[in-house]
């Protein structure tokens, strides 16, 4: 079991409020990603759940029990650190076994569990090596092994893949997701990379300046962003925002259209503009179009249209794909 609930969780360091009251329900077995720009408080929130920081106010419930006064070790969680935080003087075996040893498990049981975890993570040949003799990806796996071997109520991941190179990151992303599904253990995963968030999460928590902006499934966030911040943060390239007359006609202060929802034509009735940069990726094309009073808009076109800087184009938003926001930036739902 690993159901985690936050109720009005606050954290301040002196006069600085890092977390301004967070409420959250994390279902058992789900994979939840905290995402947001740097400094938004996502790591702090994770550390509060871990017990590495004390809350200033509010409650953290794990399986219905308030744990704010419970030391980290007794919360039944395990954590994978950004730096991996492997014990440099212990072998891989020692690293994975440490938590079980601290829990006072009998030796043969520890061995069985360590070898089981090592087999799952393809670490068996490296069990007797020291962390410094391993590659980055292998170290990452040891850190994960250390987390899974304790069969915790939930895994906490703090930007675990950010020190890996791009190719390895994609591979580890898949492995972590697969492992989590296989173990069916709740996972909370912190990242600033929205691609990681979209691909790994069952549910995403978007944080900004210490507040939860939206909590929902990746597709919900993509299709129905709650506000301007989420709309701008989720999706790549970024959503286009248009204000002024064009927005007013739609009954909103700001309207937003994702680049992939703009129809690009050489001659058309849509917004008129001039291509200023065209990025040809082969499979698709990103156009940066100067639309005069509307500003610079980004459009994504699947395939190749043979457009070049200076060409005139027309951009038409797909009907029903226009997001409307009020003065306060909140989404207007029809």
């Amino acid at each position, binding site marked *: 079991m690993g159901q985690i609930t936050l109720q009005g969780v606050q954290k301040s360091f002196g006069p600085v409020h890092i977390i301004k009251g967070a409420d959250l329900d994390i279902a058992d077995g789900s994979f939840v990603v905290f995402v947001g720009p740097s400094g938004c408080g996502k790591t702090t929130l994770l550390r509060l759940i871990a017990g590495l920081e004390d809350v200033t106010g509010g409650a953290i419930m794990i399986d219905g029990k308030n744990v704010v006064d419970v030391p980290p*070790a007794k919360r039944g969680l395990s954590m994978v650190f950004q730096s991996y935080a492997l*014990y440099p003087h212990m072998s891989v075996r020692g690293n994975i076994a440490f938590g079980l040893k601290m829990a006072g498990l009998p030796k043969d049981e520890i061995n069985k569990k360590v070898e089981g975890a090592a087999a799952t993570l393809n670490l068996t040949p490296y069990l007797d090596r020291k962390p410094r003799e391993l590659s980055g990806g292998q170290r990452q796996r040891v850190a994960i092994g250390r987390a899974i071997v304790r069969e915790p109520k939930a895994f906490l991941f703090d930007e675990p893949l950010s020190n890996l190179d791009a190719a390895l990151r994609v591979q580890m992303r898949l492995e972590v997701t697969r492992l989590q599904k296989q173990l069916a253990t709740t996972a909370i995963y912190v990242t600033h990379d929205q691609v990681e968030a979209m691909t790994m999460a069952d549910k995403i928590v978007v944080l900004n300046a210490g507040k939860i902006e939206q909590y929902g499934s990746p597709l919900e966030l993509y299709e129905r962003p709650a506000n301007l911040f989420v709309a701008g943060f989720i999706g790549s390239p970024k959503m286009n925002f248009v204000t002024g007359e064009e927005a007013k006609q739609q009954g909103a202060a700001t309207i937003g259209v994702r680049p992939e929802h703009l129809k690009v034509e050489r001659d058309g009735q849509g917004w008129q503009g001039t291509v200023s940069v065209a990025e040809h990726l082969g499979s698709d094309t990103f156009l940066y179009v100067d639309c005069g009073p509307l500003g610079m808009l980004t459009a994504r076109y699947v395939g190749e249209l043979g457009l070049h800087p200076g060409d005139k184009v027309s951009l038409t938003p797909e009907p029903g794909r226009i997001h409307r926001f009020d003065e306060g930036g909140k989404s207007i739902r029809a």
Partner: protein
Amino acid sequence: MARMVTTQRKVISTAAAWLVGFLIFFPILWMVLASFKTELEAFAIPPSFLFFHWTTENYVTVQERSDYLHHALNSILIAGGSTLIAMLIAIPAAWSMAFSPTKRTKDILLWMLSTKMMPPVGVLVPIYLIYRDFGLLDTRTGLIFILCLGNLPIVIWMLFTYFKEIPKDILEAARMDGATIGRELVYVLTPMAIPGLASTLLLNLILAWNEAFWTLNLSTLEAAPLTTFIASYSSPEGLFWAKLSAASTLAIAPILVLGWFSQRQLVRGLTFGAVK
């Protein structure tokens, strides 16, 4: 990346470095040689560099006539004792400042450093009088105590800079793994800190062994360590060069060996981490 250097340049710099190194080391070498000469040869002009009558009689005489081992034991007890006590006080203090820093930590550290800057001569008078009144003059306890206090700031500083380099993440990982503070100390912190602890220990043994202000002023015979013992050779009637050399060689040999082991840590220790 090390760059390729022409052979010629390498030969020149090697020759120059060896020459300078030899010149700097020469006084020590000369002293060691003199310790194996007879008194007559030690004084002889022209001096003989290698082809003299090698003898170990000076070493025997130094022990028999002036009880060298007694002073060596004093040195070991005073340097060792003061260092160990300083470590015992400093480890918890440095641990606390490195891992639970507060707003005042930096001020406390700098203040500790500033106590080391106080010239010993500035407090010579009261310390001497206090020691006289408490019967601590010429006692090992008195010297252990004062050397311990004198080196405490350096010990704390060195340990602090070493502890500071242990990533906080790892301690947090241990906490997540269920280690109590005690077990965290035993299983994680101590093994990771051992190189730092060792070099701090070594450097402070050296400093305490060679300390020559308090030892000269507060000890005469009973508690006199090697620094004071060697100083007794300065009186004109005691000028037996070969024996002086033998006693000196014995006095510096152990510390020279320790010093060579700790030279890499020496810089950061003595500059309080300002140069690494």
